């Protein structure tokens, strides 16, 4: 036995898997491990900045149309399933907690902990998508999906007729009511797409973690994955009040 293999056996801690590389491998173009880690985190933040711009464009469109026709948006918002959205927000915030704890486990070098927290995060992400699918199907069933089958519910059409001075204004308001649902389906759809990517990435990282793929306990890799997951959570933190909670006070 060479001295190298002895070291590897010691670090493997008796597991029947590949020996763990506790030392972080350093790519030659970095000065040290800290710089290497910071570069990865910075790169992820650059990507997230473009993501923030992307979602901001949609939020800007929402802001303009809502400012143009506040009543149509208020009425549209009443058709969202507030408590399903509430449950989903709860699930997503909890998944962010498990992701943060998973990152912490990787910082402490506890690989099994990382795997379990990542799996828990992915399960909650899937639960979010399941609830979202239920919401979508109910809305589509009620003809609230924009397009040829879209129907403004009778009571909303009446309410919009009351606040519209001319038939042209009523047509605009009815269109804006549909626009609320265009924005709702597009923004939440794009968000759900980000969730799907996040779940796949989390599961891939969990599998790689299980197989001892990373050096240095994968701390930087899991941290960067966590940044993406938390970002998707932050987006939802804004979407929930903007789309579901415009005004639930009833009296208007």
């Amino acid at each position, binding site marked *: 036995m060479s001295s190298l293999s002895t070291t590897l056996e010691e670090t493997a801690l008796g597991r029947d898997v590949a020996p763990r590389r*506790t*030392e*972080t491998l350093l790519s030659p173009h970095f000065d040290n*491990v*800290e710089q290497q*880690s*910071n570069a990865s*985190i*910075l790169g992820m*933040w*650059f990507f*997230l*900045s473009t993501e*923030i*711009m992307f979602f*901001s*464009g949609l*939020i*800007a469109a929402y*802001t*303009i149309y809502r*400012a*143009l026709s506040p009543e149509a948006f208020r009425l549209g918002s009443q058709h969202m399933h*507030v408590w399903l959205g*509430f449950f989903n*927000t*709860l699930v997503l*915030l*909890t998944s*962010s*907690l498990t*992701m*943060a*704890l998973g*990152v*912490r486990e990787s*910082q*402490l070098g506890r690989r099994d902990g990382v795997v379990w927290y990542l799996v828990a995060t992915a399960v909650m992400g899937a639960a979010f998508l399941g609830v979202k699918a239920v919401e979508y199907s109910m809305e589509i069933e009620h003809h609230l999906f924009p397009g040829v089958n879209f129907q403004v519910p009778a009571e909303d059409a009446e309410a919009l007729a009351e606040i519209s001075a001319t038939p042209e204004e009523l047509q605009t308001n009815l269109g804006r009511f549909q626009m609320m649902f265009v924005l709702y389906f597009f923004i939440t759809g794009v968000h759900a797409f980000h969730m799907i990517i996040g779940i796949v990435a989390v599961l891939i990282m969990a599998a790689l973690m299980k197989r001892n793929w990373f050096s*240095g306990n994968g*701390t930087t890799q899991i*941290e960067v994955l*966590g*940044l993406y997951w*938390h*970002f998707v*959570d*932050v987006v939802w*933190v*804004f979407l*929930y*009040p*903007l789309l579901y*909670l*415009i*005004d*639930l*006070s009833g*009296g208007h």
Partner: protein
Amino acid sequence: MANTENHIITVRTYLIVYAALIVLLFATVGGAMLPLGAMHLPVAMTIAVIKAVMIVLIFMHVYYSSALTKITSIAALLWASLLLAITLADYFSRGWLDIPGK
């Protein structure tokens, strides 16, 4: 590798932040049910911003990150606010939006 960027936050801190996020979630739903009139949006957005800041600083570790990462995260916010502010300024100043009391 105990690097300085690997500041390990305690489980207790994570749980406190999580509990605060849940409380704020209840607050945002509760706020929507109160008769706040025109104050609904400012209240909801204030709560959302507080939640986002907590997630970014603690869950995303920006509080403990390098200065460059801090600047990048703030720059993203700056670009987003430029986009919203200048677009809205255009709409408001051209009278394309109905402004109460104008």
